[in-house]
């Protein structure tokens, strides 16, 4: 059973978003996503300064068996990426909601995060998928 962190928001495509005190939004992939991918070997993060739109493919996670796009859950500008992932992509496998964060985005509007799935709704999505 995949772990679903309670204090953050999710997408149906298995990204999560966390509104930070400074107003930026931290983004990563869910425990379900990392489990489905398996051992990650490479993470491609976007350039800092890039403008991303909701639903736009902006990062790639590559495991021993597959490579998947990561879609931005919100619109905004990338202000930071997790540089540690370049050498230790397994942080996503080990701690997907913490040290395995992928990027921070300055949102166009904070309300977009509010509109995302909460933990209960995301758990329901996983249950419907049989996960």
């Amino acid at each position, binding site marked *: 059973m995949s772990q679903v962190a309670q204090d953050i928001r999710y997408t149906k495509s298995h990204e999560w978003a966390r509104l930070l005190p400074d107003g930026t939004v931290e983004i990563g992939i869910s425990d379900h996503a990392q489990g489905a991918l398996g051992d990650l*070997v*490479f993470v*491609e993060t976007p*350039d800092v300064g890039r403008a991303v739109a909701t639903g736009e*493919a902006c990062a790639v996670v*590559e*495991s*021993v*068996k*597959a*490579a998947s*796009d990561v879609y931005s859950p919100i619109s905004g500008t990338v202000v930071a990426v997790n540089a540690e992932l370049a050498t230790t992509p397994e942080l996503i496998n080990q701690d997907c909601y913490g040290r395995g964060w992928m990027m921070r985005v300055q949102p166009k509007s904070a309300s977009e995060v509010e509109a995302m799935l909460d933990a209960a709704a995301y758990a329901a999505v996983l249950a419907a998928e049989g996960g």
Partner: protein
Amino acid sequence: MPFIPHTPTDIDEMLKVIGVANVDDLFDEIPAALRVSGLPGIPEGLNEMQIGRLMSERARQDGRPLSFLGAGAYEHHIPSAVWAITTRGEFYSAYTPYQAEASQGTLQLIYEYQTMMASLTGMQVSNASLYDGGSAVAEAALMAARAHRRSKSLRVLVPQALHPNYRKVAISTAGNQGMRFEEIAYQRESGQMDLAALKPFEGQDITALVIQQPNFFGVLEDVDALTDWAHSQGAFVIAVVNPTSLAILKPPGEWGTKGADIVVGDGQPLGVPLSSGGPYFGFMTTRMDYVRSMPGRIVGRTVDLDGKQGFTLTLQAREQHIRRGKATSNICTNQGLLMTAATIYLSLMGPVGLARVAEASHQRAQELVAALTRVKGVRLAFGGPRFHEAVLQFDRPVGPILRELEAQGLQGGLDLAEFHPELGPALLVCATETKTAADIERYALALGEAVRNARAA
């Protein structure tokens, strides 16, 4: 397993099962306007007997001239063992196998090939080969655009003295993907890329600079200065090299302060016969930093559960059978058989043997230039250092002279009228280790006569 094509009965049964009237209906999602009915200019198929006869006739038309033609494809001695081994049943396939790991021998051979190419070019990783030199240049440009994250311009600077076919292939392949190729003139005295012609591009966003060593004229570029210029401008360096020459020239990995970023070229000189122009194979090597942006297959060495050495396809997640439309490249194959021949050629020659081929070719070419420029009305076009080719300028059109040589069983070189009209009547000549002093003497005598005849006419 034998390959048995479907019979008309099989096809009817399959269509019935899926409820489709005929095979054409399977393609009905392609708009009618985009479909081609028939291929004009392409004749009907021929049977084996007919095609065998036709090809023998064509081969006879080629004749067996004493050839001083290079221009991208080079006549080198190929030890008999190369193709005797390459055509063994264990190797005799054009493809990397689909169930690749079942063929450990094939994978080990590709791994050895990659190791040799990486070492020859001074780079860290190699793919399992590409189609040919031209497509390798195109793929290198596309790769530079993917790998170079700070450059957004898709602008690539190419020397005017880049092989014209490579430029054409690069433009037709990568041009439609938004890449722009801009030409950098050469110096008329040396034949080398003109550093002054690069000046106007300083401070601009340039994705990559292509450097061909030796260039199309056979002239050696000042690769260190060009590489450092490109890196000072934040551009990648794509090296296009002749693999034989690398046995005696500085490998691209050591060009300038930082070395080239991507190295490509045509592998034909490594054991592949001229064969009227192909098939040849392309090679590509790069730094480990950019391996995920490199097209083509890559074989890696690993250990199995018992700790024994094994070989495996690696980094497949960037290929199209996994990443679909977002794959690094649509090139997920290689020129298996030609690459096999090259691997065997390289292992038979060894570093010392390859260097002897390169040195002998250079020496023969120097002798050729000396002999031909003694002919009145023939002079050397460029003063820059050379490998095994040179451009000669004439005071009469080259075409008729070449035809007269041809009548005497001599292929004198490439008439540059079509490619570099600015040079006036000019001929690109080449000599490799296959040419003897007597061959060169014969060419010089025949050329002297042909030029005298042309002047008298």
